[in-house]
């Protein structure tokens, strides 16, 4: 029987962050580990369009057209043929207040997990964030050394500006991505209003992205070819897969790809794991002193429920479904669109609003423009002729608000052992009217009725199933990641975060996983 001092399950952001801390010391990383079978064969979206490569753009089996009949349930990144490999795992479904299934999802089987399709925003939480969200068992100072270490490892682009304090004070290593005309105008108007001491109701700055805007440390600069909605693993865009490859190349860990964890048994001396090889179906057993589960919030929760044999048990579930608001800067309509761009452009917050909030301003030009046409209330022949001109003066504001556990939003297993998430309570976006008012002096306009509440489960900012506490109850975790009833099994992914401040949680769950890994190293058994 194989023996490892420590075993991590999952190669997503949490898994690799923990593996870095425990590298070179009998650490094994087990992962279902799919790699893309297809790749996008063009350096930019423009070159694929000019070349008329229908297969690359729409998929060999027309995967990109999955929204023709049922719009909205699938994120564009889940439709792309070369990104489908990310979510081939155990399925789950999300139901609304009426019990209707509003989202069909699946766990990630990809090496690098869900980071293969993320938006690349890496943001620190602050003490204010934790106080506002509530229930966190420690102050942010506990994570600061881990934030700093990860930021150096990943390489963050951005700049020091008015959002510096809100974003946790990191000094970005690389300059921000180039701005599209609409974002440039919005930011210029903001700076001009601020300099004229006009009373502004919000703070605006450049986003912090895990994206190399210049070549550093032998790594490539990102091509900014607008291919984010078509492929993963682009040079210069960080995903957990990069760290996994580095750890494998340096032989710092033992990597067991294409293995699925089925169950485990814990004794006083060790944990025994039952694994299944995905290709051959062969079963394998190994032992370890410490098991760290980083399979992603939903899949870890499923494993824990199956392990506890508590079919009827209900766990809390928190998501971060963002509100999407198209913004128009009429003065910028008909601007020439850039040849190189990246979706995330600017970031803002309404500091005086009661609830925590963060607004990301996206440039939607890197999508297939046909995706946007059904949202224009005009005949499609006119919309086709207008869309390019409109996009010159358009941004999409993605509004994130603090999410806290709500008793009726919950996760459980059905009789077939499949995950069902009930998410009946979806609060309306409280920041929306304030944002519309705040943007008007900057020449950006929209209407409240244009806002779209994305369905719960759609944004994949999942958390809170096994919240960490100083004195955990059943199906909760200790602050050092251990399950409530365990000495050797820990949870390191988003499921231990007790609430979600209004920011992307990836950097925090990585920092928390690294912190728990250090606890394992220090625990003395």
């Amino acid at each position, binding site marked *: 029987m194989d023996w490892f001092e420590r075993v991590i399950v999952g190669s997503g952001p949490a898994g690799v962050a923990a593996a870095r801390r425990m590298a070179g010391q009998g650490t094994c990383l087990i992962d279902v580990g799919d790699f893309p079978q297809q790749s996008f064969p063009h350096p930019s979206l423009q070159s694929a369009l000019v070349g*008329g490569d229908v297969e690359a753009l729409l998929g060999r089996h027309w995967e990109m057209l999955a929204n*023709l009949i049922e719009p909205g349930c699938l994120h564009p990144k889940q439709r792309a043929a070369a990104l489908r490999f990310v979510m081939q795992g155990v399925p789950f479904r999300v139901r609304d207040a009426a019990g209707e299934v509003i989202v069909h999802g699946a766990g990630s089987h990809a090496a690098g997990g869900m980071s293969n399709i993320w938006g690349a925003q890496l943001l620190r939480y602050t003490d204010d964030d934790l106080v506002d969200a509530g229930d966190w068992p420690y102050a942010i100072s506990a994570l600061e050394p881990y934030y700093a270490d990860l930021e150096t490892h990943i390489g963050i682009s951005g700049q020091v500006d008015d959002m510096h304090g809100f974003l946790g004070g990191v000094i970005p290593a690389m300059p921000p991505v180039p701005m599209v005309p609409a974002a440039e105008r919005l930011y210029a108007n903001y700076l001009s209003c601020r300099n004229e001491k006009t009373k502004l109701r919000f703070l605006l700055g450049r986003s912090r992205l895990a994206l190399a805007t210049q070549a550093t440390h032998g790594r490539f600069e990102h091509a900014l070819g607008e291919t984010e909605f078509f492929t993963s693993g682009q040079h210069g865009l960080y995903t957990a897969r990069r760290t996994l490859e580095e750890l494998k190349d340096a032989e710092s860990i033992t990597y067991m790809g294409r293995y699925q964890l089925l169950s485990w048994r814990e004794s006083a001396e060790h944990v025994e794991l039952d694994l299944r090889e995905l290709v051959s179906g062969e079963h394998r057993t190994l032992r370890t002193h410490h098991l760290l589960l980083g399979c992603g919030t939903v899949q870890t929760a499923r494993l824990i429920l199956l392990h506890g044999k508590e079919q009827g048990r209900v766990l809390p579930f928190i998501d971060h479904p963002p509100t999407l608001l198209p913004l128009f800067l009429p003065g910028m309509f008909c601007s020439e669109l850039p040849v190189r761009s990246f979706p995330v452009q600017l970031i803002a917050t309404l500091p005086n609003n009661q609830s925590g909030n963060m607004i990301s301003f996206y440039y939607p030009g890197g999508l297939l423009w046909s995706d946007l046409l059904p949202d224009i209330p005009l005949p499609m022949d006119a919309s086709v002729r207008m869309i390019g001109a409109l996009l010159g003066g358009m941004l999409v504001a993605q509004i994130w608000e603090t999410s806290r556990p709500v008793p009726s939003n919950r996760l459980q297993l059905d009789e077939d052992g499949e995950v069902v998430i009930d998410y009946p309570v979806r609060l309306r976006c409280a920041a929306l009217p304030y944002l519309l008012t705040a943007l008007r002096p900057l020449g950006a306009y929209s209407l409240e009725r244009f806002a779209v509440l994305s369905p719960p489960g759609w944004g994949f900012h999942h958390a809170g199933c096994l919240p960490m506490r100083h004195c955990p109850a059943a199906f909760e975790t200790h602050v050092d990641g251990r399950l409530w009833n365990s000495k050797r099994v820990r949870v390191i992914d988003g499921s231990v975060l007790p609430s979600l401040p209004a920011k992307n949680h990836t950097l925090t769950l990585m920092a928390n996983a690294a912190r728990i890994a250090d606890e394992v190293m220090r625990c003395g058994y």
Partner: protein
Amino acid sequence: MNHSTHADLRQEAEHFYCCLFGSEAPPALIMHYLAVHQCLTELSEVSVEHSRTLRIIIGRRLNAAAIEPWLRRKGRRHALTAKLLLVVYLAECGSGHIGFSRHVRVERGALIFAALRGLAGLCHGYYLRRYHGLV
């Protein structure tokens, strides 16, 4: 549920392309249109109501693009919306289509003209829908 034949689909593609872009559909686009219908069976299995609407629009050579905004709905799309959208996707990805020229500056006058044309199209579509009883 009604199923369309290849000939029906070819006629659909030609008519929808003409409504959207005012010219003859490229053969490659028609080929792709048929291939998508073979692959995505939901697109071929059209309800009786929707099928009637499609038949009237194509048989009477009505302006499908003008009628479509009045048939848009939340949730599952009307067959007309889905099929027009398919033609638009195929046109966008087929080659550097004139309507989708990226990184080319559009004059403000052209934008205003297109918007006014769109509004006129909406009025025309409303009349067509009512007159022909399309649902």
